[in-house]
């Protein structure tokens, strides 16, 4: 075997084993690498209850209301299957709104309320001008009205 063929084999073998090891390690740490848990994870009891952890999902429509001090916010985080009530005392990021992705840091209190110490907005991968967003919203309203009218029962 020529020297350069030996080197080629060494490199190929080395890279394959590194890839294999990385794959196995990542697979083993799979659950620890998630940045946040979903509300369904909480219901399924795979969340470290006593510890501080992150919960992620969408802010449920119509669930946001502010406390009397004007800075405490109550809302529910949903993954469209399960919703978890969250209470937060502090300033929310600009992008925070109903229907928007959100990640909250905190822990579960007795009674199943998640007490957040920090709230981050999560952006989705859609980018469009405001006029386009407005047009889509209008189209959706139109569609909803048509369904209502034709439904008629």
């Amino acid at each position, binding site marked *: 075997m020529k020297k*350069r063929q030996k*080197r*080629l084999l060494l*490199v190929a073998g*080395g*890279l394959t084993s*590194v*890839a294999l090891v*990385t794959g196995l390690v*990542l697979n083993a740490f*799979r659950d620890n*690498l*998630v*940045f*946040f*848990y*979903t509300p369904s994870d909480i219901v399924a009891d795979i969340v470290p209850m006593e510890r501080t952890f992150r919960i*992620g999902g969408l802010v449920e429509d119509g669930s946001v209301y502010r406390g009397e001090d004007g800075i405490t916010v109550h809302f529910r985080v949903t993954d469209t299957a399960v919703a978890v009530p969250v209470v937060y005392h502090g300033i*929310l*990021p*600009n*992008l925070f709104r109903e229907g*928007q992705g959100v*990640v909250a840091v905190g822990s579960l209190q007795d009674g199943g309320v998640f007490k957040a110490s*920090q*709230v*981050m*907005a*999560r*952006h*989705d*991968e*859609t*980018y*469009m*001008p*405001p*006029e*386009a*967003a*407005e047009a889509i919203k209008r189209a959706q309203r139109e569609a909803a009205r048509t369904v209502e009218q034709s439904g008629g029962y």
Partner: protein
Amino acid sequence: MSERGIQWFRFTAPANFYDLAGRLIPWFAALTIALFAAGLYLGLVVAPPDYQQGDSYRIIYIHVPTAWMGMFLYVLMAVYAAIGLIWRIKMAEIMAKAIAPTGALMTFFALWTGALWGRPTWGVYWVWDARLTSMLILLFLYLGYMALHAAIDDRQRASNASAVLAMVGVVNVPIIYFSVQWWNTLHQGASITVTDAPTMATIMFVTLMIMVLAAWMYSIAVVLARARVEVLERERNARWVQERLEDGRT
């Protein structure tokens, strides 16, 4: 390989590379300036604001091209390093070494602009989610490669040792790319994929692609220039360098 005598290998000869790169660099530099000017004008003036993020989304025009470039340059660097290590082609070793600083710069810009975008959008500069962390590891791999190369005095041993580091680090690139799919991350998923239509308005997409091209042209021009200097340093005693010096061709 060389038994077949393909013309390709002409350019692996340092003297030929030196001449060709010298002719190409001004073109790539001119393209860089033109594309950056057009891309920045479109991105900052023509493109509309985003419906949710307003104007802060415009940082995407720097963030995405530099992030892609950082990842791609790493793969390229590792491929050159492997070729240099296995087939002992001097030019490949030089190219691998020349790519590293540009790749590190691109990765740094991606991290930095990402932090500046994260503060108004997410509410934090930095979080330890899979995407951000793996990108930071990429920066450390670049810095480690350069440090290792510089730490060993013997040129051949420096090349070999850092080539191994470059190749091992390649596993990180698919991790960066797929991190947003494999794990829950704060970072959003990809807007532009090979399989689906981009989830962004056409003018934004076109502008982004112009900026991506600009990043490419910049990287090519700078890497070629750096490789040229390296060739000159390594071959300073060679006859072809003396000839060019006498002719005034530099």
